[in-house]
Every structure is written in C-alpha cells, then in structure tokens.
C-alpha cells in the first residue's frame, strides 16, 4: 500500500569520512525516491554505505553534499535543534541490537521516547497501549535482560512508534534474532505502513527480509547499483 507522494527524495547525496588512512567516500552521488507508505529494503555488502544512508535519512548526521528531503523537510537546512525535533517527530528507529536502556523496564523504555517527544500527559497509558499492540501486555515491568531477543525487538518497535513517526528506519532489525522470532518481527514491521501509515526503510543483508519489501535498493561502493 503506497501513496503517490514521495516521502523521501535523495538527490546527489555524497558523504565521506576523514580517517587516519585518508578520506573515505561512503556515499557517492546517491539519488533515489521513496514513496509514502512504501517498504524499501537497502542491501549491499559491508562498507557499501547502508548505515550512513540510514543515518542521513534519520537526521543522525546532516548531509554533506546533495540534498535529502523527507516528508517535505530539507535536512540540509535544519539546525542541530531542528534535527533533534525532526528525529523525535518524524522518525522512528529500530536497531539491530534493540538499543534499549537496561536500567528501564519495557514500559519505561517506551515512555522515554514519549518523554523525549515532549508528551506531557497520558504517557504511561500510551506506552501500555503500544506495548499491548506488539503483544507485550504481560511484559510491562520486565527489564531488557529479562526479555528474549524477539521481545526486546518488539519493545524497540513499540518505542519507535511512540511519537507516531512518518518514517521508520530499521537497521538489520532481525540480525540478532532466531528464525522463529525473525518471522514474527518481520510481520510486525512490514505491517507498520499498513497499520500506521508510515514509510519503512530497512537495512538488511537478509534476502528473506528484502523479499518482503516493495522495493530493494542495492548499494555498492557508495552508489546505487540497482
């Protein structure tokens, strides 16, 4: 289910890192468009620039050259504070290793996203609702170490959805999961555009995951190969 409007427009995006060995170009004139509601898988070998692309799309790093527009926002023009606002209002992240805060319970981890999202009232109820929606109504008070990998990723997905983002960025979301959990998490993730009206970009090495996408972007040497 896709909309006709582009959610993401990337034009001539370039990105490089300075290292002791010299300058390394990780993205080289990348151009692509993702329509709203689309599920896009980004694939490619290690070092191809997948994670950097995700960082730029997610506002974790400003684009160095070229332009990136996400749901009408030109990321080049955003200040540090505006990028933070963009991240909390527009983007939801799902990480390979879940990136949950170990000292917080599942409920508190989801609530944290709402807190950082400047939600003042009803945070607890909203967090419970989100956890229940990913099938964790019985795990509110469990800390990450007491949950399975699949359950932790469900908490991470609930957290990513906390502020009703228009774009979900998932970095190898099934990379740390067993086969049984992988299917369930994929079902959950690929259902997000349908259920929440968001666009989903998944970085993955897994062809099974890519097979569930509407479209696959293949990155090689910092360029879109296909």
């Amino acid at each position, binding site marked *: 289910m896709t909309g006709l409007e582009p959610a993401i427009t990337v034009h001539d995006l370039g990105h490089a890192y300075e290292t002791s060995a010299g300058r390394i170009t990780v993205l080289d004139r990348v151009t692509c468009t993702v329509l709203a509601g689309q599920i896009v898988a980004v694939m490619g070998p290690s070092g191809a620039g997948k*994670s950097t692309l*995700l*960082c730029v799309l*997610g*506002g*974790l*790093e400003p684009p160095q050259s070229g332009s990136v527009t996400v749901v009408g926002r030109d990321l080049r023009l955003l200040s*540090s*504070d505006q*990028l*933070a*606002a963009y*991240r*909390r*209002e527009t*983007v939801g*992240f799902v*990480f390979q*290793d879940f*990136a949950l*805060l*170990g*000292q*917080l319970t599942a409920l*508190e981890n989801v609530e*944290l*996203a709402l*807190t*950082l*999202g*400047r939600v*003042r009232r009803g945070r607890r109820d909203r967090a419970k609702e989100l956890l229940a929606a990913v099938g964790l109504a019985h795990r509110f008070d469990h800390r990450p170490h007491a949950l399975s990998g699949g359950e932790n990723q469900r908490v991470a997905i609930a*957290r990513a959805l906390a*502020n009703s983002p228009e774009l979900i960025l998932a*970095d190898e979301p099934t990379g740390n999961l067993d086969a049984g959990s992988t299917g369930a998490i994929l079902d959950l993730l690929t259902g997000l555009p349908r259920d929440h009206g968001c666009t989903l970009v998944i970085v993955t090495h897994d062809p099974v995951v890519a097979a569930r996408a509407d479209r696959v972007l293949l990155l090689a040497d910092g360029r879109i190969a296909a």
Partner: protein
Amino acid sequence: MTWRDAIALAARSVGRKLGRAVLTVLAVGLAAALLSSLLIASTAAQRRVLDQVSDGGPLAGIQVAPAEPDPGALDSDNPPRGDPRPIDDNALREIAALPNVDAVVPIVANPAIVVPPPDPLPGADPRRRDLTRAGTFEPYFDTVVGVDIAQADDLPIAIIAGRLPLAGAPEAAVSSGYLRRLGIDKGQADEVVGTEIVVGAPRGFVDGDDVYVRGRWVRLLVVGVVAQELGSGQVLVPLGEAQAARRWSTAGVETERFDIPESPYTGLFVVAHGLDRVPAVRQAITDVGYSTSAPETLIESVQRYLRVVEIVLAGIGVIALAIAALGITNAMLAAVRERRREIGVLKALGASNRDVRRIFLVEAGTLGFLGGIVGTVVGYGAAQLLAGVVNGYLRSQRLETVQLGLPLLLVVAVVVGSTVLALVAGTVPAQRAARLPARQAMGDR
C-alpha cells in the same frame, strides 16, 4: 524534556552504577563532613570565646557607672571614671531613649552581712577551712546586687547551676566567688543550690555618742549559681529586694563601717543595637554625662581573629570539596565514555543537546546533593565526637564545656554548596555528552 523528567531519568542512571555512585557520594560526603564539622566546631568555639570575653552577656553590652566621664580617656574599653554622679530614674529614662539602645538594665547594690550555712557543705575543700572558726563559717561583709530578673537575659550572667531567683520571692543566686569562700569547686555548684543564707542590710543608729549597726535580716533560698559577679557582690537578688535593703540602709546615719552608694542605681547595663553601634551609644551616654565601659575593642579584635580562623578552616573544607568535585568530574567523564551509545540512542529518540546536558547535570547535582546531606550528618556526628573529647578535657580542668549547635543556615549552605559544586564539576562531562554526535546511536561503526 522537563527538569522533572531529567531528575527521574538521572535517578535511574545514578542507581545503575551503584558502587561508583556510592563512592562518589561518599567522597563528596566526606569533604562536606569535613567542612561542616570544622564550621560547627569553629562556630561553637567562637561562641564560647565571645561568651568568655563578654562574660556571657550580649556582645553589644555597655556598663554605665555612676560617675562622670573622664574626658581624656573616652576611646578606651575601660576608661578611668570622673567625679561621682548619681544615676537616677531620669538618667535611666534618658539613656533608654537614646538611639540604637535596645535595653537598659538597672543594677542596685547594697552592702550586706552574709551569713552562710554554718556547717561545711559536702564536697567542700578541707584546705579552705581557714575561713572558718570552730568548724563553722563566719558571717562576712559583702554586697547584694539586685537586677530586674525579667531582663536577666540582657545581663552578662552565665548560670552554672540551678536558676535565677524569681522576682518577689525570697530567693537568691550566688556567684562563683561565694563557692570559693565556702571551699566548693565550680563542678560541685549543685551542692549550694537548696541551701539557705541569711542576708542583713546594715543601718547606722546613733545612741548617744556611739553609732550602732542594726540589720534588716532576710532568709533567702539559694536557687542558683552564676559564673560571674555583678559589681563586687556575691549575692544576686531580685531588684525589689535590693531596693528595699537600700532604703533601709540609707535611712540610717553614715558610719565608717560600711559604705552606702550615693547613687540610687549603682550602675546600668545598656545593650546597643549591634556591636557596630556600641561606639555611638557610648558617645551618646558620655554626652548625657556618664562614664561607660565595654569590651568592644577586645571583642572586635577577637572576632577578627576568629574570622581568620574560620576562613582558614572553611578553606580547608572547600579544598576537600574541590578534590571531591574532581572525583565527580572523573566519575561523570567515565560515565559519558561508557554511555556513548546510550547518549546516541537518546538523541535518535529526539533528545536535543540541551536535554542530554540537562540529564548529566542533574546526575552530577544528585551526587552532590546526596553527598551534602551525608556530609552534614556525618560532620555533625564528627563534631559531636570532637566536642565529647574536648569537653572531657575541659571538665578535667574544671572549666565550662562547649555546646554544639547545628545551624540551619550551615546545613543549607553545605547541601546547596555541595550541589552547586557538583553541578560545576559536572559541566564539562555534561557538555561533552551533549556534543557527542547522534550517529553514536548506530554504535562505533
């Protein structure tokens, strides 16, 4: 992110590395304890020294003598007196109405024949028996001093046993000089309380060519012992009793056997509105025409010296706190290093640089606040322990002990000071955390 949210999150973060947090809090706590115990001890010592200098009375106390001022020695703490000049009710009212005068306590002294209990009291030093004849104490000439008991707090009187006599009651307090006369040590002052003395106001009668002395005798219950003597008297009574004795004595004829003061009031004790107003009040009383004395120069010198001691002690405490603050900086920098990923994740979730800085500052402030509370409690305990040792020594030397207080201002200053210092110490780590790139959310890839 609100401060409340930041505090909730910081509390969780502090609790995560409990061992490190406890050690950091202890470091701050020990430094704060050192600072607070030094300040508590120095405050107590300052109070004790100033009490000693001012004889337990107000620091801004001025003694007014029934004499004219000596124009050549007005700037001295204790100048020589000029010619006698009686202090009457008009003078009292005039002085009370002067600017910067808080209170005026009239003092009436009258000669008296004091008859102590005949038998030596328990604990009396047998070596002082030279004051007795046939094993009993003899009556002796002394002075009774009367003051308005309701204003006793304004007088340089320190009670070492019992209480002051009640106005209108046949009661008296005796001085430490009376104890010495009876061969009793200050530490056994309680032995005197509850005994009775007979006091006679003398009056001269003419019988032919001879002058005889008759007494107005009153039996007084000794209810307390004071450390100082007001004037030269060893017996302190309510003002009314001294005035009655004086009326009796002045109604007789003059005799060489005793000296009746000419002045209705043998002195005034004036309390100025602060030590800094003492010179002005003394000058005003001088202008009225009376000689004054006050230990203002001595007190100011002592205060200056004590202030220096206090500053040195506070300096030691502040250095300790500064070292503890470095400990906080170190612990917080370690936390930032360890939590780079977490900081990145917070930023990925939308935390601004300001949010991250606030979280780490609150963490530092929490450590400082807890350390301040621990330090105040431990410091007070340490000061009490120190006071116990010091008081043991003072008691062995038959000296008055010191009493410790825990001023609310000190508690607030130490807790707030520790918190502020921790916030300052946490500034660099918080700034470093805030500047970490959001990309840290993806790990160190």
